[in-house]
């Protein structure tokens, strides 16, 4: 039995989600290899080789993989998949984009966003925005799986796996990367942050969002998130969205400010260890999942909180 983890590569490094996906792979059992695909991704491959429990790292280097375009990337994964009983990738936007393409080319029904491994062929995944948990047993000989990284502990470092080069699988030439407009921030990345401070529509404007939410986040060394309503209203960019169709987070501390708590938002944060809600509407559904609720005007309470934290 052998399992392949497809790494989340960013330039010369790999994301923590890769370590977490390795944990899911180890829970399935057998030998675990990692595929690192990128452009000049040698350092990323070396980083992947340090993850404990990994047998070997497959390193594919080609300009076609630099921007993670679905068509060449899926062809590469398919080209190495024959040696494996299961292929896993974190359910971040790249994994969600590429893996179903891989699954269909292999005639496999993908198992999306697993949160637990019950047996090598049986997995638990959330459905209906996490309002129900489905346990499924796959009848496919090969499994194609995306992993909700926050549900697994990161595999430790300390390994020294062999790195082997694999051939690029060509580029069908049907897609072209034009540009990326990425949010620049010195704050921690939302998906992996220990503390997340999120704002909702009650903030009222992007200026107020910055004025109220950012100082608290900076005081706590936290990442900043937002409800769909705040993103739709244009207060913050799309990649701040926490929820069913945005990012799923499970930090030590999640502070929801001016967020009412629609089920689609709760789906993205209710596995956080401690949840704080600040909202002036005491009937807001967010209070049903909050460990600590403060019914207050956020424009007064949040600056007060910043001061109280010294």
């Amino acid at each position, binding site marked *: 039995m052998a399992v392949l983890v497809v790494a989340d590569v960013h330039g010369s490094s790999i994301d923590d989600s890769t370590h977490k996906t390795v944990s899911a792979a180890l829970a399935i059992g057998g030998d675990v290899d990692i595929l690192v695909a990128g452009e000049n991704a040698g350092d990323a491959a070396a980083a992947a080789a340090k993850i404990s429990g990994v047998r070997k790292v497959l390193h594919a280097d080609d300009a076609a993989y630099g921007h993670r375009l679905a068509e060449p990337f899926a062809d590469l994964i398919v080209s190495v998949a024959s040696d494996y009983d299961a292929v896993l990738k974190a359910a971040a936007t790249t994994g969600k984009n590429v893996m179903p393409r891989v699954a269909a080319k292999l005639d496999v029904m993908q198992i999306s966003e697993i949160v637990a491994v019950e047996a090598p062929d049986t997995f638990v995944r959330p459905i209906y*925005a996490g309002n129900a948990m489905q346990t499924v047993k796959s009848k496919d000989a090969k499994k194609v799986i995306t992993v909700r990284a926050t549900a697994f502990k990161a595999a430790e470092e300390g390994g020294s796996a062999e790195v082997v080069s694999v051939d690029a699988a060509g580029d069908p030439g049907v897609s072209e990367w034009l540009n990326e407009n990425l949010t620049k921030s010195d704050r921690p990345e939302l998906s992996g942050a220990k503390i997340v401070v999120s704002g909702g529509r009650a903030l009222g404007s992007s200026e107020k969002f910055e004025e109220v939410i950012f100082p608290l986040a900076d005081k706590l060394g936290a990442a900043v998130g937002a409800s769909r309503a705040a993103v739709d209203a244009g207060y913050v960019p799309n990649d701040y969205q926490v929820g069913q169709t945005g990012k799923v987070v499970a930090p030590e501390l999640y502070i929801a400010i001016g967020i009412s708590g629609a089920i689609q938002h709760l789906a993205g944060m209710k596995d956080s260890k401690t949840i704080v809600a600040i909202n002036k509407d005491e009937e807001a559904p967010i209070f049903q999942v909050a460990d600590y609720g403060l019914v207050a005007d956020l424009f007064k309470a949040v600056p007060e909180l910043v001061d109280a934290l010294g």
Partner: protein
Amino acid sequence: MKILVPVKRVIDYNVKVRVKSDQTGVDLANVKMSMNPFDEIAIEEAIRLKEAGVAEEIIAVSIGPEKAQDQIRQALAMGADRGLLIKTDETVEPLAVAKLLKKVVEEESPELVILGKQAIDDDSNQTGQMLAALLDWPQGTFASKVEKKDGKLEVTREIDGGLQTIAINLPAVVTTDLRLNEPRYASLPNIMKAKKKPLDVKEIGDYGVDIAPRLEVVKVTEPPVREAGVKVESVAELVEKLKNEAGVI
């Protein structure tokens, strides 16, 4: 060009789902059903492309029960030209849906298929990518902007970290994200007119696609319930609890 828009009948997004006590699934009896919200965005985008003169015809297709005609009629009322229902009472997994849609694409020869990035019932996020793979077409997933330029499609995608813009050859598959557009409401006259638009109904067996599930649902259970928390009276009390009780700051 011709645009095919697959739409799915799902539990309405405002309904709080209940897991059945026998753990076989969620209770769908007497529950409000609607068009998957992401598919509504797909229909809207197709209509806007038609209004901009880029598209000539929009076909809405659904795979589901007889009642899924309601969702197709909604698409027609919004502005789609004709509908196709592939009728089944079985649960059809994304891979089988993609295989069925491939057959429809072969019959209809659209230049573009636009569909929701995921259905809000099974949250799979697979069908569009799988259809693109089976057709060997490029894919523009999680789109927040779609433009036809120089014979290609420029798609701005919502990705982790921000936005990515790609150019893909046509024919192509595009899946919609939340901020692509705001779907219109169908007006009453348009709802009346939609009743006269053509809607073909076919049996799933007509397509010769194996729809046997690959995933056996062992059980469906309630998610772990969070214990009810407490309300604090002041910011000072909140800070004290976070420091000394929760130990998270």
